[in-house]
């Protein structure tokens, strides 16, 4: 959201926008992760193991970002926005768990439990190699576009590895900070992170996320999601249009 806002509305160069966005992603994800981890939802082993994939992907993405044209980044960004809007508009199919848990999840001790009411609910992890592969992709997108790519991380953990939703969303959030930190080094060296721009963006987003968490509880989620989805699609189309007409 930050990158299209900065580039489309304020006309900021996409490289500065990516740098500022990356910094704010680290801030919000670390802030939120602090709370989730203490409540015991986050599975730090799953997070740690999959961070191998996301950090390597992030390095690759950051390398690509410094080498391909801003137009190409814009087109990829636009497509990603439209895809993620489509993903969130669709109801999440509840996949029945039929296959046996992956032997890897036993070997890597990924299976865990999370608090549900008064008791601990145990769960098992499936299809570890496929999830790991998708995480490399999520990391690459994060490094290339300066985003958290939380949606793709949740997709990998929720839909493929069949980790309970509460655990996959909080663990995804837990991983975002480390993933973003991996590409931040490359961005810093390339001069993408401008202090004058990153300062208001980081402070603003951090304040907003603290306020938003309170407002969200009172909002009608269904209509909110629809409006949000439409805005994302429009931004995606505009991003691609600007990239194709060379205005990015």
């Amino acid at each position, binding site marked *: 959201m930050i990158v299209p806002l900065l580039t489309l509305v304020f*006309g900021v160069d996409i490289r500065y926008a990516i740098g500022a966005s990356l910094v704010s992603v680290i801030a919000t994800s670390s802030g939120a992760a*602090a709370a989730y981890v*203490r409540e015991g939802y986050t599975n730090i082993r799953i997070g740690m193991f999959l961070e191998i994939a996301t*950090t390597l992907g992030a390095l690759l993405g950051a390398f690509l970002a410094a080498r391909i044209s801003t137009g190409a980044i814009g087109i990829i960004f636009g497509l990603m926005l439209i895809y993620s809007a489509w993903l969130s508009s669709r109801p999440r199919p509840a996949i029945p768990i039929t296959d046996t848990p992956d032997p890897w999840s036993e070997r890597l001790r990924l299976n865990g439990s999370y608090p549900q009411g008064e008791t601990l609910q145990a769960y098992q992890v499936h299809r570890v190699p496929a999830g790991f592969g998708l995480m490399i992709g999520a990391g690459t997108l994060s490094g290339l576009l300066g985003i958290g790519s939380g949606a793709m991380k949740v997709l990998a953990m929720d839909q493929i590895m069949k980790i309970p939703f509460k655990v996959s969303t909080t663990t995804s959030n837990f991983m975002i900070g480390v993933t*973003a930190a991996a590409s931040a080094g490359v961005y810093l060296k390339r001069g993408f992170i401008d202090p004058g721009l990153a300062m208001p963006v980081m402070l603003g987003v951090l304040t907003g996320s603290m306020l938003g968490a309170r407002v969200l509880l009172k909002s009608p989620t269904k209509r909110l999601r629809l409006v949000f989805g439409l805005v994302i699609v429009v931004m995606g189309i505009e991003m691609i249009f600007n990239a194709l007409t060379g205005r990015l």
Partner: protein
Amino acid sequence: MKPPDSYSDYKLEQWIGNLLRIGVFLAAAVVLIGGVMFLAQHGSEHPDYNSFHAQTNAFRSVTGVVKDAAAHDSRGIIQLGLLLLIFTPIARVIFSAMGFAVERDYLYVAITLVVLGVLLYSLLKLS
């Protein structure tokens, strides 16, 4: 190998949670101080972010940023805060490695060190 003890995982989770909270708070505070100074010094100028010109060399390396921040340069102080922010998840990884070592979970010590290696490679080798 001793199986991981869920009680020490609980302790590790509390530690990590506190570490993240302190890191973000500290980074935000430093950025805010730098930001106030920056606005006092450059608030009336019109910044140009429409075209990209890479930062001066001082802002691209850890030592350069620290040197500028020590000289009370507002942009340097903001960058220092941003560096603190980038170090927060890295510190979390170091903490996890130590936590897994205490639990004698050497498989996860190794996994964590791989992640730490990638992070340090990105931050030190490339900048």
